[in-house]
């Protein structure tokens, strides 16, 4: 492929933008080897691409810089402390599991609590209704005694 055809094919642009396949990358490499005049074109193209994207720049909020500074400081600090102590690096692992694990003895304990709560509930209801009926009986006897006394 002639240099001009290669330039016009747009492979260099797609290579610089990260849109090329492995074969195209290899093609660029071979063409760069074959024709050194392409280097000047690539330099100009890089300048154009940079100019284009610089013209569309947007200033990010200042907080972003502080966060990046903090992150890079942390990374540096971790790296230095690991180098000093010779410790292995720990990876931050995010756990998405919503379950908790408890000892197996908790199972009979939960069952016992459940059974006891049912027993107390039934007993409570039994004694409640029993005392209510006793009070009714007492009231009935009282009225009977009063009627007899009259």
């Amino acid at each position, binding site marked *: 492929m002639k240099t001009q055809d290669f330039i016009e094919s747009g492979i260099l642009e797609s290579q610089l*933008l990260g*849109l090329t396949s492995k074969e195209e990358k290899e093609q660029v490499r071979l063409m760069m080897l074959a024709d050194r005049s392409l280097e000047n074109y690539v330099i100009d193209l890089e300048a154009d691409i940079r100019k284009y994207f610089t013209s569309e720049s947007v200033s990010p909020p200042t907080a*972003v810089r502080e966060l990046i500074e903090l*992150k890079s400081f942390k990374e540096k600090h971790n790296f230095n402390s690991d180098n000093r102590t010779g410790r292995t690096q720990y990876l931050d692992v995010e756990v998405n599991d919503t379950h908790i694990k408890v000892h197996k003895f908790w199972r009979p304990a939960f069952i016992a609590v459940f059974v006891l709560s049912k027993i107390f509930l039934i007993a409570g209801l039994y004694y409640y209704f029993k005392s209510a009926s006793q009070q009714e009986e007492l009231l009935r006897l009282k009225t009977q005694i009063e009627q007899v006394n009259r």
Partner: protein
Amino acid sequence: MNELERINNGAGPQPVAKLDSNLSSLEVYDKFGAMAYGIILQILPQPHLAQEVLISVFSSPQLRSCNSYPFSFAVCVIKLARSKAVEAKKKLTALVPVDDDYSASLDSSSPQTIFDLAFRQGFTPDEVAGKLNISKSEVLRSFHEFFKSYRNV
């Protein structure tokens, strides 16, 4: 030794301009932060998401590899910002599917449209070619035309 230095094998003209060497994340951010944020916003218009992506770009270990990138640091940052933003956009669209509404632009396969689809929408040149019913070489040629027209403006 980087890719182009290997190509040049230490002889003849210097490899492609590479003025920025071994910069720290903050130095790179001060230099290219606004440019990267502009690129990310073009792909992800939501400012809070764009800012998260921007932070991930400049705290990414991949940024260090730009020091040995064969082309300029700016181009490496452009590629990295785009790839991170496209990745975030894909994750976002996987959660909240958005209908592809390219019907209006499908008629015109102008270099601008093709560049938008490939760079901003995150489609590969093959996918763009399929969408617009043109060949991949035409897609690549459109990139050249796009920057050529920009140069002439």
